């Protein structure tokens, strides 16, 4: 497309990640801090692929207990009942609360799995030096950054339920072990998206030419 176009890296310029100031590489040998905002300077996010893979694998491991252990434990008149994310969704579908069922399903199941799959796809495409639709892959990356936070909905619902429903012996709700695992999934996938550097998508294409 733009054959003669240049990237900052090709011109020997480092762009500060935080304030986007461009600095010639040779000026900052051995003193890699941005003169304007003080951020640590690097040409690309350090060890981006390794870090992102490590965080993605951590999230894959954590997502298993997050889905199979109970998210909430409800005690009604002495009888305890544990609810996983999926059993909660099914319960709301059966009782006709489609809005809640779909919010929880999208936020707690669809978004985390999609986000992990997208990150894995981006990582593999960079590692195989794919030149397939880089613009769309960059847009996919922006999407993963955008949607991850909505997975926290269920954690907040649990927080509110735990705080509200404590009517002594009649009924009470406790947070189950899955809440911790699930929160960990959200946090690790957010860090994973943050550590991936979308400029690698373009770098590997430039290197091939």
């Amino acid at each position, binding site marked *: *497309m*733009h054959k*003669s*176009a*240049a*990237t*900052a*890296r090709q*011109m020997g*310029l480092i762009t500060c990640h*935080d*304030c*986007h*100031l*461009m600095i*010639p590489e040779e000026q900052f040998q051995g003193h890699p801090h941005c003169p*304007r*905002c*003080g951020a640590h300077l690097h040409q690309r996010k350090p060890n981006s692929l390794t870090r992102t893979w490590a965080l993605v694998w951590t999230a894959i491991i954590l997502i298993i207990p997050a889905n199979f252990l109970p998210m909430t434990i409800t005690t009604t008149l002495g009888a305890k009942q544990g609810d996983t994310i999926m059993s909660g969704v099914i319960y709301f579908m059966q009782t006709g*609360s489609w*809005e809640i069922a779909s*919010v929880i399903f999208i*936020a707690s199941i669809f978004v985390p799995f999609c986000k992990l799959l997208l990150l894995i796809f981006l990582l593999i495409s960079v590692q195989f030096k794919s030149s397939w639709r*880089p*613009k769309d892959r*960059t847009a996919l*990356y*922006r*999407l993963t*950054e955008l949607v991850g*936070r*909505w997975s*926290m*909905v*269920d*954690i*907040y*619902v649990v*927080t*509110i*339920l*735990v*705080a*509200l*429903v*404590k*009517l002594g012996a*009649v*009924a009470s709700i406790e*947070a189950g072990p899955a*809440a*911790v695992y699930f*929160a960990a999934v959200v*946090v690790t996938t*957010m860090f994973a998206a*943050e550590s991936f550097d*979308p*400029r690698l*998508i*373009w770098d590997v294409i430039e290197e091939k030419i």
Partner: protein
Amino acid sequence: MIFHRIQQLLRKPNAATPQPVPLEGSPLASGLALHIGSHTVIACHDCDLLNRLPEGATTTLLCARCGAVLYQYKPNSIDRALALTLAALILFILSNCFPFLAMKSGGFIQETTLLTGIHELWKQELYGLAFLVLLTCVLVPLLQMLGLLYILAPLKLGLRPAVQAARVLRLVQEVAPWGMMEVFMMGILVALVKLGHMATIIPGISVFSFGALIFIMAAAFSNLDPALLWDRLDLRRYA
């Protein structure tokens, strides 16, 4: 913040106005100033392409190669962002002082504020979870608001930038993904419907102030012009 970013994703370049063009050759060789006060050449943060921006643009400018937002026209950004941040701070204080939900079941009335919810998680020994909720719904938004006041107030008053203001702005930008008030609001709505089946739920003052707070914060951030701020906070200007 989230609305702002959706808006960015959906925005299409306006064909009638000059758009960024890829820079050919080295910006240093072409004699372009890269440092103080220069917005003419920008490296795309998503694909690293050097874009030459048209002067005095009054639209949103997207990267010529990958479509990332490179520049947004924001008139009176300091005044607007400062006013909105002050409003947000007042709403934030209201939201934390009043209960957001009350539950009536039989003879009991159970009220909860944001902080009692967190305290309840803490009592159940879910320390990590309690801290995460505290961080994402209280500490990060508060830090962002106070940080913006600290940066914007001296600029508005025509003073020199506050001590370490550039570092504060960096911090405000870096913590932004961890402020999740709008997600919490969604959680309140889900809990409202969920509990509606078993008891009478009364939404409190906080639900409304919190709802307003989310929009005001989003507006404050979308009026913020980071490029302008970075330039104004650059102490090398004053040296």
